[in-house]
């Protein structure tokens, strides 16, 4: 019998990738294409959805060619995508209505401030388990429909459709199936996270016509069969990218967590079939849902500045030539010398949510060298992780016992050791670095029976590296205290205008 494979489409913020995996979860081939970022005004970020679809059409055969296989050998395709990015398109022509509004876009700033005070806001926040923020799709849809009355009319007649990126790709792949998955739907503010269907009160609140919304489906289950890009192949799964990484790290049980360390970092903790409402500034989100089963939920902590602090150290301070050299520089000293950097460049996120805070470097003395600053840069990522983990432990009542990590910063041994030290739990890096696409592949393969069950997937997970905590508890407590005092010094820096 010919060997069969699973393909993941990873539709990210800067690029789209098609990756072929084998039965043991090993990467067989990869094809990647960046797409253009549009910045029409300050704070606005857009993508051309037509360009992204063209990229998928080109990458699909390329990935299969690189792997030396044909469509017949592909058991299923899974999608992982940038979340919250909002797109409208014409049902008849399949043409996007303008550009997609990307999750980073803050054009709804003022609108969100108004919505926070509006009647019904509390109910919407409760039903969606999300705080009113520019991050999510709901305010963006209201903005689009408010600014384009002609679009609203057509949307009410069902002629214009809404979707996040996975909806758009499935629609194009299947030639007209309008669906979304629960993880992506859970980032719109329009989903009732208990019933897992669109919330009538949220639709009324944002003024979104029901006719333009896709059908909400489980993340893992056959959505349909592709007629384009991968003709004849079943689409087995769709998940938001961070949820896909959680799945790729095989965090299937309550209490299991992963953190993806990139420009920013995203820590997700599986809380099982119970939705945990955070009282510590975390988001509640759907982790995944297997067709016929209950949804698994997660708590999510987002850290705005981690890898980007290293980039700042490299590009703005010019103290290092490449990002990995931060470790070399940090290792020229034994400790931080009493210096702490809190990168509240645009306020503080979880668990503080203080937009008026600004970054500080504290503890400067004539003793401090650039080596100490490099340490403080790396330690900032670890302490921010600690604050999110503390919030998660408090919210969930589950004590994190191991942190699974992925992303570019996991190449930094000093940082990984320091994270283990300050969390006082082992930090583990899996052998498969591409956890987002692997998660999409796992989910799709599971849906079509390519892999039998979750246990089968766990057997593919292998430890590539592990860092065990070695820090003296007294030093840990003292350092954490110093960090928190440093954080307090960022508060109230900008004054209300």
């Amino acid at each position, binding site marked *: 019998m010919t060997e069969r494979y699973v393909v993941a489409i990873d539709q990210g913020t800067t690029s789209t990738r098609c990756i072929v995996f084998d039965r*043991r979860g*090993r*990467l067989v081939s990869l094809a990647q294409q960046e797409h253009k970022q549009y910045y029409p005004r300050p704070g606005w970020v857009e993508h051309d959805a037509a360009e992204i679809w063209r990229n998928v059409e080109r990458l699909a055969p390329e990935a299969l060619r690189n792997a030396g296989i044909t469509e017949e050998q592909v058991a299923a395709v899974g999608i992982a995508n940038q979340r919250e990015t909002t797109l409208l398109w014409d049902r008849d022509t399949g043409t996007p209505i303008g550009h997609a509004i990307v999750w980073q876009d803050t054009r709804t700033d003022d609108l969100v401030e108004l919505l926070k005070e509006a009647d019904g806001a509390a109910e919407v926040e409760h039903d969606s388990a999300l705080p009113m923020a520019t991050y999510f799709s709901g305010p963006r849809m209201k903005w689009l429909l408010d600014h384009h009355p002609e679009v609203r009319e057509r949307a009410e007649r069902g002629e214009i459709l809404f979707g996040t990126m996975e909806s758009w790709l499935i629609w194009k792949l299947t030639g007209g199936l309008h669906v979304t998955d629960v993880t992506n739907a859970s980032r719109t503010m329009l989903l009732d996270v208990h019933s897992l269907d669109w919330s009538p009160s949220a639709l009324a609140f944002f003024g979104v016509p029901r006719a333009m919304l896709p059908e909400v489906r489980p993340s893992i289950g056959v959505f349909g069969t592709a007629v384009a890009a991968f003709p004849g192949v079943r689409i087995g799964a769709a998940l938001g990218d961070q949820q896909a990484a959680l799945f790729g790290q095989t965090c299937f049980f309550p209490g299991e967590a992963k953190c993806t360390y990139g420009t920013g970092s995203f820590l997700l903790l599986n809380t099982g079939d119970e939705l945990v409402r955070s009282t510590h500034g975390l988001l509640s989100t759907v982790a995944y849902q297997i067709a016929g089963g209950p949804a698994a939920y997660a708590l999510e902590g987002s850290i705005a500045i981690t890898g980007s602090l290293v980039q700042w150290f490299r590009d703005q301070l*010019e103290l290092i030539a*490449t*990002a*990995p*050299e*931060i*470790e*070399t520089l940090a290792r020229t000293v034994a400790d931080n010398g009493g210096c702490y950097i809190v990168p509240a460049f645009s306020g503080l996120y979880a668990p503080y949510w203080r937009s008026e805070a600004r970054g500080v470097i504290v503890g400067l003395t004539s003793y401090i060298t650039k080596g100490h600053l490099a340490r403080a840069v790396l330690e900032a990522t670890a302490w921010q992780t600690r604050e999110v983990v503390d919030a998660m432990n408090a919210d969930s009542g589950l004590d994190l016992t191991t942190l699974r990590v992925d992303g*570019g910063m*996991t*190449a*930094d*041994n000093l940082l990984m050791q320091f994270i283990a030290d300050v969390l006082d739990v082992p930090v583990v890096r899996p*052998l*498969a*670095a591409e956890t987002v696409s692997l998660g999409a592949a796992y989910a799709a393969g599971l849906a079509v029976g390519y892999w039998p069950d979750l246990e089968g997937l766990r057997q593919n997970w*292998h*430890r*590539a*590296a*592990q*860092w*065990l905590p070695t820090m003296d508890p007294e030093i840990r407590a003292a350092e954490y205290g110093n960090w928190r005092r440093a954080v307090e010094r960022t508060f109230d820096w900008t004054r209300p205008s």
Partner: protein
Amino acid sequence: MPGTVQSIERAAAILRLLAGGSGHLALGDIARSLDLAKGTTHGILRTLQLVGFVEQDRVSGHYQLGPALPHLGSGHLDVNELRSRSINWADPLAARTGESVRIGALRDGQALVVHHVFRPDDTFQTLDVGTMLPLHATAIGKVLLAYRAAGPEPAQQLDRFTRRTIRTARDLAAELQHVRDNGWSLEAEEMTPGLASVAAPIRGYGGLVVGAIGINGLVERICDSHYRPHQHLVAYVRDAARAISRELGAARR
């Protein structure tokens, strides 16, 4: 005498000029001083910049000697940079061979382990990063030694770890010649009884060997009964080494 290479002569002249002057020179000054076309001078400066011998001030655009020059002797890639650029190739090597993977670089007459991927069997293992390995008794060490352009091996103390450890300078020289002929190295029970390793060179720009990548495992899994390594394992190791070399070279163009 074979002909000289003009561009290298010119590069040397530029370096002397930068070393002798005020430290900062504009492109035009350098070109005028050497009576060269600006385009030619710029091409040479760009190449010197790529290899780290020259750097350009971001604001003034002037050229000066680069940070790599005082450290020519250690002439290595930053080890954390090496790990960061290798990580995506070391993982698949461990997955394909089922063995642990190490990347080493030459430091103070030993091989410094700069990256380590566990054997993918989920048994308890500890990270070796930062440990020093003897050059003559490990596959990674043999590669680093073989491609070190230091002429005949100086009479050094060859510590004995097992009865198979190479003990004489003569045997070592023959072994290193063998490594250079093959493009890969083997160590079988020369460091620890029961274990073997296979390694291949990682090359940076200009072919300079900046490190070695190898697998480590039970001798009966790495070798046949005559201490010959399984050829498919050697091929995987060499593929990974080549992929990393391409990555390092490509990024410098």
